[in-house]
C-alpha cells in the first residue's frame, strides 16, 4: 500500500489577534506560530496507521518555502518514509486551482494506491485542492472520510454527512480521500523524534522544472480584499470578578426560567 499525503503549513490563529497586511489581501503573519494544518495531521496519521497494518510506503508532499519544510519533518517523524517539497517562495499568489495543478503534476509520476488530503485548510477554508486533484488525476474519491478499511484492494469508507449521518461506500483503488478530523488519534511528535527523522529523504523540486503552462499557473480566484468581520451588536459583555459575574449569570438563568 503506497500512500501519498498532502500537507500544509498554516498559522495558528486560535487565540491570536489578527491584523490585515499592508497589501490588504491577507493577514499579517509575522508574529504567528505555524504548524501542520489540523486536518492534514489526521491524514498523515491515517496513512501511517495503514502502512503499519498493510506495509508499503508513505510519502508526504507540500508546496512552499524552506520554512514550510517543518510540516514535512513532522510527517517524517510520525512515520512517513520520504517527503517532497515543491519550492515556492510565496504560495499566497496561488489559489487552490494552481496548487492542485502543481501537486497533481508531481504525484502523477509517483506510485500510489491512495492519496490523502485534509478536508480543508485552516487558513483559507476553501477545501477544494483534494477533489480537484482527484479529477485531474482521474482517480476515484470520497470526501470527509471518518472511517476507513482496506479490503480486497478496495477502500471501505464512511463519509460524514450533515446531521449525524454517515455514508458508507466501497471504492476501487487507486483513490483520493479527503480525511476528516476525529478519524484517529494523531500520535505525539517529540523534538527528538523530529531530529531522528532528519536522516530520511526530503527532496526539493523546483516549480520551474515541472513544465506547467502559464494557464495552469494562473489563479482563477483572486482575493481582492481581506477585512475584519463587520461590527455586529454582539454579546452583552458581563464584567467584574468571578463572584460578581457568577451572580449576573444566575440572575439571567433565573429570568429565563431554567433555574429556581
Amino acid at each position, binding site marked *: 500500500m503506497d500512500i501519498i499525503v498532502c500537507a500544509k503549513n498554516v498559522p495558528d490563529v486560535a487565540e491570536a489577534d489578527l491584523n490585515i497586511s499592508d497589501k490588504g489581501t491577507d493577514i499579517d503573519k509575522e508574529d504567528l506560530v505555524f504548524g501542520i494544518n489540523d486536518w492534514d495531521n489526521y491524514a498523515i496519521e491515517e496513512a501511517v496507521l495503514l502502512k503499519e497494518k498493510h506495509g508499503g510506503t508513505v510519502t508526504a508532499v507540500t508546496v512552499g518555502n524552506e520554512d514550510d519544510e517543518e510540516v514535512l519533518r513532522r510527517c517524517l517523524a510520525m512515520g512517513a518514509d520520504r517527503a517532497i517539497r515543491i519550492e515556492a517562495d510565496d504560495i499566497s499568489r496561488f489559489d487552490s486551482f494552481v496548487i492542485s495543478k502543481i501537486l497533481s503534476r508531481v504525484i502523477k509520476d509517483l506510485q500510489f494506491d491512495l492519496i490523502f488530503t485534509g478536508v480543508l485548510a485552516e487558513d483559507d477554508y476553501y477545501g477544494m485542492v483534494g477533489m480537484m486533484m482527484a*479529477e485531474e488525476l482521474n482517480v476515484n474519491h470520497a470526501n470527509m472520510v471518518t472511517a476507513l478499511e482496506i479490503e480486497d484492494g478496495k477502500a471501505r469508507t464512511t463519509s460524514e454527512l450533515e446531521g449525524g449521518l454517515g455514508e458508507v461506500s466501497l471504492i476501487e483503488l487507486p483513490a483520493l480521500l479527503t480525511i476528516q478530523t476525529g478519524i484517529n488519534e494523531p500520535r505525539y511528535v517529540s523534538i527528538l523524534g523530529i531530529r531522528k527523522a532528519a536522516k530520511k529523504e526530503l527532496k526539493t523540486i523546483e516549480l520551474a522544472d515541472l513544465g506547467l503552462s502559464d494557464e495552469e499557473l494562473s489563479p482563477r480566484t483572486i482575493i481582492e*480584499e481581506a477585512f475584519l468581520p463587520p461590527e*455586529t451588536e454582539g454579546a452583552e459583555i458581563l464584567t467584574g470578578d468571578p463572584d460578581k*459575574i457568577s451572580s449576573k449569570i444566575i440572575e439571567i438563568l433565573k429570568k429565563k426560567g431554567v433555574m429556581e
Partner: protein
Amino acid sequence: MSELFVIVEHRLGEIRDITFEMLWKAGELAEMLSSDLTAILIGHEVNSIAEKISDRADKIIIFDDEGLKNFNADIYKEILAGLIEESKPTLTLIGNTSWGMELAPCLSIRAGLPLATDCIDIISKNGNLIAQRQMYSGKIFANVSFAESDGYILTIRSGVFPTDRIGDRQAQIVQKDFALKDITVKKNFIEFVETAAGDVDITQAELLISVGRGIGEEDNITIVKELAEALNGILSCSRPIVDKNWLPKYLQVGTSGKSVTPKVYIAVGISGAFQHLAGISGAGTVIAINKDPKAPIFRTADYGIVDDLFKIVPVLKDKILEVKKG
C-alpha cells in the same frame, strides 16, 4: 437570456434546506441580473421534490433514473458538465455540504470554470462578480473576484440565506435523459449509518452546558460536568471534544452533530466555528465564556464573559449550589 443554475440537494426523499437557501439567493440575483433561474434535480422518483420548488424557479430540469437514486459525485459531474456546456449558465450554485464539497471541485476542473467554495454572499461590484467568504476560522472576511470566464461555480454555506420563497415564479418542468451506461461507476454506495445515536438526546434539553477546545485537557471536563449537574442541565460539546474522543458523538452540537433548541445554552471554551453556530441558531439565550475577545461566538451570543473559564466555572458552580441551598 442568461441563466442561473441551482443544483437541488436532497437526501432520502427529503429536500435539504440548503436548496431553499440557494434558491432564495439565486432568486435575488436573477432579478438583479435579469436572468432565468433553473433548478437541476437529479434522482429517482423526485416529483414530490420538484413540487416543493415549483414556485421558486423558472425551469426545473429533472433527470430521473433508478441509477440516480443515490448521490454519486462522478455521475452528477458528468450530467452537469453536459448541461453547462449546452446552456452556459452565468452561475452554478451548489451547497457547501459534504456532497457539494466533493462535486464542485471535480466539476470545476471538468467544465473548466472558476470555483469559490463556502460563500456567504454574492455581490456584483461595478459589473464584476464578487464572492464573499470567511477565512482563518471566521476571524477574517474576504471578497474574492474571478478570472474571466463564461461562467462560475460557487458553493454556498448552509444557514446564511433564508429558506423563504423570493419573487413569483412558475417552473416549467423539463425531463431529460442521461446515458448512464456510458460511465463506469467505481464507487458503490453501501448504506447510511447513524453516527450520533446514544442514550442522551440533547435536542430535547432545555438547558445545555457545552464544552469546547478551550478546556485543554480531558480531565478538566469534570468542572463543566459539575456545573451542568449543579444546574440540572445536560452536558454537550463542540466537535474538537468528540474528535479527541473525550465525549461521545451524540453529545456534539453542530452541523455534523445535532441542532439544538434549549432555552439557555452556555458555551464554555467554545470559539464558535460556523458549523457549531449553525447548530445553536435555534437556542433561546446563549451565554459564552471564552478568553479570546475576538472569538466568533461573541458575535452570536447574547451574553459574553471574556475571561479564563477555569476562574469562572468553579465559582459559578459553588454559587449556584449556595443559592439552591437557600
